[in-house]
């Protein structure tokens, strides 16, 4: 592949693809309708009972 071709692809498709992907991720992560779900997921790993079992 010629250098000019590679630079052309990098400056068009490459740029749009990377920035576009980034924009999609940010929109999906920060859209307001997912706020409650994300907060619930963040808490899902915490031990809900608060009291461990079997502690001698």
């Amino acid at each position, binding site marked *: 592949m010629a250098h000019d071709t590679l630079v052309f692809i990098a400056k068009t498709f490459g740029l749009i693809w990377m920035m576009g992907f980034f924009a999609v*991720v940010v929109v999906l992560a920060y859209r307001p309708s997912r706020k409650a779900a994300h907060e619930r997921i963040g808490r899902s*790993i915490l031990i809900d009972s608060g009291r461990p079992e079997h502690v001698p």
Partner: protein
Amino acid sequence: MIASLSIPERQVGLMLTIGVAILGLVMLGAAKEGPMAVHGAMALLLGIVLAFALIGSLFEPDAPGGRAARYYDEPTRFGLMLTLIWGVVAMSVGVWVAALLYWPEATPLWPATSFGRLRPVHTTGVIFGFGGNALIATSLHVLQRTSRARLADSVSPWFVLIGYNLFCVWAVTGYLMGSTQSKEYAEAEWYADIWLVVVWVTYLVLYLRTLARRNEPHIYVANWYYLAFILVVAMLHVVNNIALPVSFAGARSFPVWSGVQDAMVQWWYGHNAVAFFLTAGFLGMLYYFLPVRAERPIWSYRLSIVSFWGIVFFYVWVGSHHLHYTALPYWVQTLGMTFSVMLLVPSWASAGNAIATLNGAWHKVRDDATLRFMFVAAVFYGLSTFEGSFLAIRPVNSLSHYTDWTVGHVHSGTLGWVAMIIFGAIYTLVPQLSGRATMAWPKAIEWHFWLSIAGTLIYVVSMWNAGITQGLMWRTYDANGGLAYSFLESVMAMAPYYLLRTIGGALFLAGTVLCALNVRATMIATPVGAGATDRPLLPQPAE
């Protein structure tokens, strides 16, 4: 460990161990002498010992009933023990080679103990033995807890752990015998590389099958990081290790890549080993154990998603910053440099997210050495990623490259970030898995913490000084335009720093030994019949 397997599972295990023994026999028979024959004999011995243990167990009681309703924690416990054994052995080798740089005349006359052969024993032992076992052991725990599902089967975790450690032992003993591919962090020869692919694919399949059985709708972000680690390491390992053996009956092989292509493939691998082995997997650890220990959800779950994609997308491009001012095309160097600088954004997003999680819980950080390990890990993660982005800038690299600054940078990442988060995870996990509220010696955690901090700081600061001194001495010119210092003078100037680094490493090693003894005491003190003390797999009736 065998007692946790059902009789049919022990039969499957027996077949696998016989398979390993036959593989060893074939390698031994084909190679007859040299590293490959020794490695064949090792596999043969391992297969025979495990086969005898399994045959004996066929007549012992079946696995305890009701195990499908419990998490499978035995592999995690076994993996954590291996982690600490590798940690102590590999860090001891590290301290020894550091001492050899200060007292080179202490090198024994036996070739296996030369610096060149022992150094990769240290790097492989620490990265793959200590780090890799910690990643596998904790990933199996985090996977089950966040999915609320037991591992998909009971045999493959043992295959993964034992097979992976066979690879590590093959690798380090190969170096002692002078067998190496001469690729940094990928020194192991072709048959060990193929074996690792088999083990790694089994690991990926186990991970995916367990995730598919999850009882949580969402896949928690820690699993994304662990999966990125498994998937990308497989890709890197396969591509970088494509090599043609001189003969199928010998250890020697040559890579298919040559010249600058080989260098680029190697550092694409090398830097992504840092990215996906030493970062992504450990971020998975951070995103699970830090919130659990602090008993607070991660500050921003959404930011963790954005930083995940940022890290995954940017890291794969940065390898060429290892090849500044080489035959590599200039634009490829610039590409690596640019992405390295951009990488700071997702890296600091992760470090900031971790530290912001602790905001409001500083009293816990003050009182709980385990949480303090994780806090320090997040701080060092932030520091060493900043330093990494900075060192990747071409003019900075012209000062730092080939000096001990690089060594200091690597150790601020591995001691300050990777090892600290491992210790935080171990001190959280081991009491839980042992059915206890605390470690056997809670005060020893405090000692370990301060030994680690002191060791890391002494090591890193002395290497910064050493590296900058070297870099400046190599570029100082006299009035006639000649070099002001000979290379030997720059070596002599290193003496105090090399002594300090040996002392720093020894302090860090002392902490690791303390940790290993503490874990051993805690595991021995496990109450009979105790299970994990965290939440059960199935919802329990109210008491």
